[in-house]
């Protein structure tokens, strides 16, 4: 390729990518940098910001509600991520086997993703009601006394995880696409070697879709650590103030309270950066560990 052509192609490439670069700088990188600056100030949204050095970060270490909110969020993530992975994979396997009307079922399972999180939260408050909810009604048919899902501190985070599963359709679509890419020849070869459905699942399907599963785990973890919508609707909305308790306080709700209820945008920015660092560390650890188990097509291993 001549040098002139290469330069032309480089210019064209920059031209095509520039809308994204501009959008990223203005709407992602810019606000991130601004929030980093604000995290070293006492910015209240209303008044002039003054530099406070590391005071906000020192306060983070001493604030007992930060510890409470972080613990709740981590517990929720530990409940949600495995559950979301298993449920999404299970649904994808079922959809993979559907012959007729596959398009309809794919749409049906994806539709909940389009439902506003607030609406889903409100709906599940009724379904999970400990005294008159449908779930406990059904459990009652089998002689099981269901708990107070949304009011018992022990069950608040599990119920939040259940509500979040409602929107697992996005991962289902990704896993389904991965399942469709598993070569049939591999299954046939395994069958010839006498492998049953379970062994084929663990030794053919799972390794071949491990990249998609890993992607799902990483994105579910990030989403879980940033949980806000459902938690706010279920426990902190105008009609649900009575549910707000130490057990239902997740990190993003506490951040929101500081930013928009207590006029502490500087402190809220510090909270946001602490969460960013936590997510970064968790993701790096996941990538390090995940690379040992994930099969990449065409990789040297």
């Amino acid at each position, binding site marked *: 390729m001549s040098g002139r052509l290469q330069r032309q192609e480089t210019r064209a490439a920059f031209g095509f990518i520039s809308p994204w670069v501009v959008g990223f*700088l203005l709407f992602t*990188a*810019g*606000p991130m*940098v*601004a929030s980093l*600056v*604000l995290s070293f*100030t006492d*910015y*209240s*949204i*209303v*008044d*002039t*910001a003054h530099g406070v050095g590391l005071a906000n970060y020192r306060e983070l270490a001493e604030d007992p*509600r930060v510890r409470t909110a972080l613990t709740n969020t981590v517990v929720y993530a530990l409940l949600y991520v495995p559950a979301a992975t298993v449920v999404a994979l299970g649904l994808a396997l079922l959809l993979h086997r559907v012959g007729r009307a596959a398009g309809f079922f794919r749409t049906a399972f994806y539709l909940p993703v389009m439902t506003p999180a607030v609406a889903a939260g409100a709906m599940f*408050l*009724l379904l999970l*009601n*400990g*005294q*008159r*909810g449908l779930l406990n009604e059904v459990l009652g048919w089998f002689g099981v*006394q269901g708990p*107070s899902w*949304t*009011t*018992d*501190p022990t069950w608040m985070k599990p119920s939040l995880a259940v509500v979040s599963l409602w929107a697992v359709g996005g991962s289902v679509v990704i896993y389904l696409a991965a399942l469709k890419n598993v070569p049939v020849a591999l299954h046939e070869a395994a069958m010839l070697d006498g492998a049953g459905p379970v062994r084929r699942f663990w030794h053919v399907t799972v390794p071949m879709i491990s990249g998609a599963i890993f992607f799902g785990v990483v994105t579910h973890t990030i989403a879980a650590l940033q949980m806000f919508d459902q938690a706010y609707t279920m426990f902190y909305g105008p009609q649900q*103030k*009575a*549910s*707000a*308790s*130490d*057990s239902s306080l997740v990190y993003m709700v506490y951040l*929101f*309270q500081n*930013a*928009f*209820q*207590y*006029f502490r945008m500087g402190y809220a920015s510090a909270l946001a950066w602490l969460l960013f660092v936590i997510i970064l560390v968790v993701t790096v650890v996941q990538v390090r560990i995940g690379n040992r188990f994930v099969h990449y097509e065409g990789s040297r291993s």
Partner: protein
Amino acid sequence: MATTWRRWLVVVPVVALAGCAGVGGNRGRDEVVSSKDDAQSSWAGRATGSMTTMGFGGEDEVGQSRVQAFKTANPDVDVTVNPGGFDAQQFLTALASGNPPDVVSMDRTLIGSYAAKGAIQPLDDCIAGQGIDASQYRPAAMRSVTYDGHPYGIPEFSIVQTDLVDAKTLEAEGVDPSQIQTRDWDALAATATKLYRADGSNIQRIGFDPKLPDSFPLWAKINGVDIVGEDGAPHLDDPKAVEALEYTVGLVEAQGGWTKFKSFRDSFDIFGADNPLTLGTITAFPMENWYVNVLRDSIPRGLELESEIITDRQGQPVSMLGGSAWVIPKGAKNPVAACQWAKTMTSTDTWMKAAEARMQTVEKDKSFFTGLFTANTEADEQIREQYLTQAPDPGFAHAIDNYYSVLDKATAVNPSPAGAEIDAAWQSAVSRALEGIPAAQALQQAQGEAESAYEKAAR
């Protein structure tokens, strides 16, 4: 050279974005006028131009007739009424972007915090410039919008509480309505337990709901203490507040315990035909005046309403006074129109037009008027005299009378620069107590959190 270029690439967006985010911006305080007369005259005169409102739903006939009253009185003002209730995030981001609405309707409990942060303007000059008669507003309502000696809002509605009672259940259980009282706490606990019903672990009826956590300030008041002092400082761990919380948590424990009690309460269709008083799933609870308007539609379904005034332990009527107020944000572009709006929307004449519009709706629906509870004493008296004829249902008539009778006795939570944090602290404490933590310990922790926030805010 390349290093310098890279350095500028980082610095320029940071500075630009910091500017966009409002760092260093303080437009409102720059708009200081030189003398008192100048200040007043800048708020005086005829309103013109365009203005926007925020936080004012106003879709019903009461809201619409008042907006129309303003438009008729101020034909030169182009008003845009943004629909929906007050949203703190929406308001603060509008403020930070330098494009705040001109006038905002917000809950009066927020005013202390917003005033302390400089988000809203003091209205002394608005009141003087537009000749607003502040004495027409209920004193407790004015007190709740006054921070550091200056009024920051023009009070709009009034919200008060009495105990609403399902008379049918009461009669069936042989309980006299006078036993729904807050003077003798042991007797009330006995009545609540008597009226409570459960089938195994499933609650079927709550006898008396103390309405925690929302009504904790009311119970503290019943026990003779304000949880926020005159100076705005929190007194959450006052022994009387602790005693009130211990007692009310005990009421909940005796009626199934918090997790079941709350689940049962969450299943209520408060605004619908199957509301708990009509279904008999709750017998009595402290409730606000607006609820009578909701319950009116349940009379054909057999609701028999009764009402008892809430008293302190010496038998004197008490109620918390809530409601909204009009405030003018810092940086409002048309403060004269905003001030005129606050004046017109809360004047006696405008309220009379609103009452007339409500009467027309009531007549069309073949229903009856349940009152219009404003923060304007004169308007309330005139509306009551002119429109509030005896309600056809004696229980409703009694309830409406009770609400009117406590209007002038009700007091508001004192405004505080850390009002939002104090609210959050006591709400968390009540939740902790309901979940089993001793009330004294829960309120001590809340007092620590609230005190720390108050000290920071008051600096």
